[in-house]
């Protein structure tokens, strides 16, 4: 473990970039693109280190994680002693996350050089916060215990708030940032409750190594453990924008597109999936939680996909697709854990979830950055004003097509391999619980919908005739600094799926008893995939989706107007555009319920508590005003008081004290 010793440096480098850019002033960085070179250099250094560490962990590790930690907080109070550690924990999962996060972050920062070029002095803030964002996400991945993870978890939330609200003079951006912060905060509180449960149950030790090796030693029974894991998953619901806390993610599109790419592909939303995958050894002990995870995942996948169907904002479509794809990951993880509980042997769920996480990171980063290039060129996010842009944006349209094919799941693009595994995991669950029939169906329908809306997006943006001549005339290909990262991502979005043939399943294992993957050659795996009828079902779903999009939005055989032709269809379409009323419901809840409670609290605070204090002080002031009239200023009256007082003392001494 030569490199792993230095793994703690990985989050330090971007942190240095944050400090340098954030605190060394505007004047220094005005000529330097607001500090972009520093941010790029530092993230690149941590990328190199992360790749070295990850490569080492994936190739030389024997399955035992590398752990290094320092005592951070020691509490000794008689019968209750505990220690919080700060450290790093490297296993195959964190190695995978390191690659994904560091790699995509570096590309995004490089891409920002072109995309954020026109932002002027605000660039410095952008590069400072994005460096911090990368740093804390890397820290989250490397954390060695749940408390440390939680700290970074909150910091990730803070950074996303700062970046979503980057254009803080825009009211919509400011409120989107607040929404993202508050909605994920609901999840954070659940996560914290889960940590309390773990803290009690595992006797004050939140280290991964301790918890994962002593799951049976949990104090408090199965019900409490189920509650704890459910609450931990609640944190993931908030961070990964799952139903019903999904509503912040589409609004988070108010930030710069680069930030969206980072949030959707590498940081933030992946933290939730990582959390579930990380706590897998605990989670698998509670099948109810696992079933719940699978159900929420499967439902969200379908639910979010429907909202992407008729949206006309290019970034929002991608945002819904992220929510939907994250649902896939949870579906796979949940299904895998549920199956493992009843049959402690290898199953594909865990590998499917993490594999989809990786592939999704690449193709979603690609899609978002391509969308960024389109927005950069067209100066609009509305797809109704685009069309025909492939003539102007040749490279962008090509790489985006690769991304679309990948997410739609056409072999041999990367999305195909992992989505197929996800569906396989869901299908395998049917033997253990009938609910998985439904979830498998959700997954399959989602595959169809995904292919449809992604190609709708592509056709509307790039194909056909320009619908807005002005936009079309001003469109131009992105600069080199933008399309080179796109090209790199396109290669990965195409090729990262081949990791499956290289034995992804047998490398990425959650370290559970009996969970031993069968060593299989690439040929065996290929045969297994393509002799399975399910594979063809998912391919068919994807092809049907693409075909429908082609007929409607390219050939025009079917007029898009048929979707809103009858009042019922029109109403349905409006429901989708209104996001099933969730936004309204949240607003209603916030404005009426929370605001009402706040008003009551405000009344108590202002009238009762403040009133009491103010009343006392006002009374004292009035009493003072009355008493000061005794101060006449005449010396003789003072003397009279003194004489009277002395006389009184003498009399008292005489009669009461008996002195004389």
């Amino acid at each position, binding site marked *: 473990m030569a490199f792993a010793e230095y793994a703690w440096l990985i989050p330090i480098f971007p942190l240095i970039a944050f400090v340098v850019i954030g605190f060394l002033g505007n004047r220094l960085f005005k000529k330097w693109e607001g500090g972009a070179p520093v941010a790029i250099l530092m993230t690149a250094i941590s990328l190199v280190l992360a790749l070295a560490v990850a490569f080492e962990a994936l190739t030389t590790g024997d399955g035992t994680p590398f752990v290094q930690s320092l005592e951070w907080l020691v509490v000794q109070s008689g019968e209750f002693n505990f220690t919080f550690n700060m450290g790093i924990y490297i296993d195959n999962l964190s190695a995978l996350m390191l690659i994904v996060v560091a790699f995509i972050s570096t590309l995004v920062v490089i891409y920002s050089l072109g995309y954020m070029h026109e932002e002027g002095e605000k660039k410095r803030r952008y590069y400072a916060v994005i460096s911090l964002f990368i740093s804390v996400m890397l820290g989250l991945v490397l954390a060695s215990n749940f408390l440390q993870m939680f700290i970074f978890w909150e910091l990730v939330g803070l950074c996303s708030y700062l970046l979503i609200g980057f254009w803080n003079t825009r009211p919509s951006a400011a409120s989107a940032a607040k929404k993202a912060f508050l909605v994920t905060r609901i999840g954070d509180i659940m996560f914290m409750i889960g940590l309390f449960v773990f803290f009690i149950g595992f006797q004050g030790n939140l280290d991964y190594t301790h918890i994962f090796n002593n799951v049976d030693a949990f104090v408090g029974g199965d019900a409490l453990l189920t509650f704890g894991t459910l609450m931990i998953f609640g944190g993931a619901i908030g961070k990964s924008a799952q139903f019903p806390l999904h509503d912040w993610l589409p609004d988070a599109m108010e930030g710069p597109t680069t930030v969206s790419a980072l949030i959707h592909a590498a940081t933030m939303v992946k933290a939730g999936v990582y959390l579930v995958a990380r706590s897998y050894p605990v989670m698998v002990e509670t099948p109810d939680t696992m079933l719940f995870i699978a159900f929420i995942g499967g439902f969200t996948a379908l639910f979010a996909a429907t909202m992407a169907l008729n949206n006309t904002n290019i970034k929002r479509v991608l945002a819904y697709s992220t929510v939907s794809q994250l649902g896939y990951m949870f579906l796979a993880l949940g299904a895998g854990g549920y199956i493992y509980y009843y049959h402690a042997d290898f199953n594909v769920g865990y590998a499917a979830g993490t594999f989809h996480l990786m592939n999704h990171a690449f193709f979603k980063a690609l899609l978002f950055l391509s969308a960024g290039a389109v927005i950069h060129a067209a100066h609009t996010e509305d797809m109704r004003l685009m069309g025909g842009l492939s003539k102007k944006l040749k490279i962008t349209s090509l790489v985006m097509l690769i991304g679309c094919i990948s997410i739609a799941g056409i072999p041999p693009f990367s999305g195909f391999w992992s989505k197929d595994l996800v569906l396989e995991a869901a299908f395998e669950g049917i033997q253990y619980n009938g609910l998985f029939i439904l979830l498998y169906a959700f997954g399959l329908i989602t595959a169809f919908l995904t292919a449809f809306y992604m190609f709708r997006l592509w056709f509307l943006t790039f194909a056909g005739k320009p619908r807005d001549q002005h936009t079309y005339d001003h469109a131009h290909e992105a600069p080199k600094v933008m399309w080179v990262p796109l090209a790199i991502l396109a290669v990965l979005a195409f090729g990262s799926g081949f990791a499956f043939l290289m034995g992804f399943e047998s490398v990425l294992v959650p370290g559970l008893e009996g969970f031993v993957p069968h060593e299989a050659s690439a040929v065996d795996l290929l045969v297994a995939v393509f002799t399975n009828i399910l594979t063809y079902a998912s391919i068919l779903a994807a092809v049907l989706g693409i075909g429908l999009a082609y007929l409607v939005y390219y050939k025009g055989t079917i007029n898009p107007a048929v979707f809103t032709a009858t009042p019922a269809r029109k109403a349905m379409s409006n429901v989708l555009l209104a996001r099933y009323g969730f936004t309204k419901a949240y607003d209603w809840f916030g404005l009426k319920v929370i605001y009402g409670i706040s008003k009551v609290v405000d009344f108590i605070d202002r009238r009762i508590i403040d009133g009491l204090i103010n009343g006392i002080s006002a009374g004292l002031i009035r009493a003072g005003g009355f008493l*000061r009239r005794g*101060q*006449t*200023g*005449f*010396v*003789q009256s*003072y003397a*009279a008081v003194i*004489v009277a007082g002395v006389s009184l003392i003498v009399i008292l001494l005489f009669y009461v004290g008996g002195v004389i």
Partner: protein
Amino acid sequence: MIPIEYFLALSGILFVIGALGVLTKKNAIVVLMSVEVMLNAANINFVAFSAFYGSLNGAIFALVSIAIAAAEVAVGLAIIMNLYKTRDTISLNKINLLRW
């Protein structure tokens, strides 16, 4: 020898006269004089007890007290002079500076 009670009675009477003068008179100089009467009542006490116990301590205290009284009168008269210069009066019921 005159019994000590007579001295004490005289001292008490003088003190009360002085005190009443301080409290009731409006003229600052009369008040100052009344203060001197009270001081002298105390001096009589000192001297009387000095003789009664056959010790000179009390007599010496009386001498110190007389010296201080002389200084006090000098200061007091100077204050009254200045008061008269600035306010054209030494009537105490017109002077109420010692107020909030």
